[in-house]
């Protein structure tokens, strides 16, 4: 990252750890979207979308079609169900590692 410059090499490592550490690819069971997910606990979820995944999401496409557009806060319920399923099937491990 450019604008705010770290002055220590270890900071770059921290950035990688907190931004990318333990992210796992999860495919939606209903569409072609693939996102990266991390679950530190049953209630915690982090979902990293890509432009491509957004383009595939049929639920978001439907929401975009309504007046006023897609409300940014809405999660995709189908994706959330897919994540829950991945947890049940043991594909996605739940738990944090030293705060990340």
């Amino acid at each position, binding site marked *: 990252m450019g*604008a*705010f410059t770290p*002055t220590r090499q270890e900071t770059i490592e921290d950035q990688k750890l907190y931004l990318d550490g333990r992210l796992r690819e999860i495919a939606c069971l209903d569409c072609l979207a693939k996102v990266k997910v991390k679950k*530190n606990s049953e*209630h915690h979820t982090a979902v990293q979308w890509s432009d491509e995944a957004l383009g595939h999401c049929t639920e978001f496409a439907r929401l975009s079609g309504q007046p006023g557009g897609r409300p*940014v806060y809405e*999660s995709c319920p189908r994706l959330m169900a897919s994540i829950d399923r991945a947890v049940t099937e043991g594909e996605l491990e739940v738990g944090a590692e030293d*705060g990340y």
Partner: protein
Amino acid sequence: MSTATTEARALDHGLPPARYARGWHCLGLADTFRDGKPHRVEAFERKLVVWADSEGKLNALDGYCRHMGGDLTQGEVKGDQIACPFHDWRWGGDGKCKEIPYARRVPMRARTVRFETAERNGQLFIWHDPEGSAADLDILPPEIPDVLTDAYTPWSWHTKEINGSHCRELIDNVADMAHFYYVHFAFPTSFRNVFEGHTATQYMSSKGRPDMGSGGYGDENSTLKSVATYYGPAYMINWLEVDYKGYVTEVILINCHLPTSQSSFTLQYGIAVKKPEGLDEKTVNYIAERYTESFGTGFLQDVAIWENKAPVQNPLLCEEDGPVYQLRRWYEQFYVDQAEIKPEMVDRFEFEVDTTKANEYWQAEVAENLRRRAEEGSTADAEAAATADA
């Protein structure tokens, strides 16, 4: 207990950026600039002059005349133009010198730095981009329905200078769940962030701590539902639904800032309250004043932290913390050239914080505080009684 030993962690203060953010920046309530006078605004390590032309359109130029450096903010509005107090050079809102009354002609190169302006929700915005791009009207903050009508109280607008902090400290709050308990005296019972494109949003439900007295987020009788979105780097709309003893009020809080240097900024906040039906004007105004006061208190609570903390480029997080690294990655998009924006800076990111453990601990702590206070109270009562008996 863990037996693992690690080295002491160093704080990386990092280096502040060499530029100011690209995007729309709010200067305040538009009408305050429409008094026929030039106004001085400090922003981006510059002095700007802002004035209204004869039709009420607001203009913003660099504050110093390109002739001999006269201070245009001390000049005079003449017709549509701002006239320099030094030699009366007249500058138009398009950044061109329109007239030099004592000269045969105006030099063709007489152009100064101009900031495009726009108005939203009764507020004045300027576009800032170190690359000099044309203003992007598509990413102006949205119009808030009815806010300028009689359905809401008029904006109560406040300004505060913050010294010794980069404005990113203010942005960090978007992802900071736990500070609401410690700094603002509220239990954040649910907390979620979504970053996408040029917006960053915080969704929070909270209720006040009963051990800290009233005011702001911390009133024990109130629960809050809050949706707060940054539209670009410097302007947030916070929609608040405050439930005070079962009485629900909708409040809109604007939180915006102007960077004045890499270690100072001007914080501005404005509050409009949706007038509850069936209440008289006096009561409505009283309610609005109370909310203005309490959210103002909230900002002062943050300021006390900012003014004393160190900048940290490598925050150490625990699993109850919000996604501060991802938030900063989002914020980074405004500090790089448009061509250098990486997909991950703008890609959608969702983060649901698990507040369960934190709230269990906090509830217990507050209960203990209340118990101790009651005990001290009864001891004090007993002592007072004993003294009275003697």
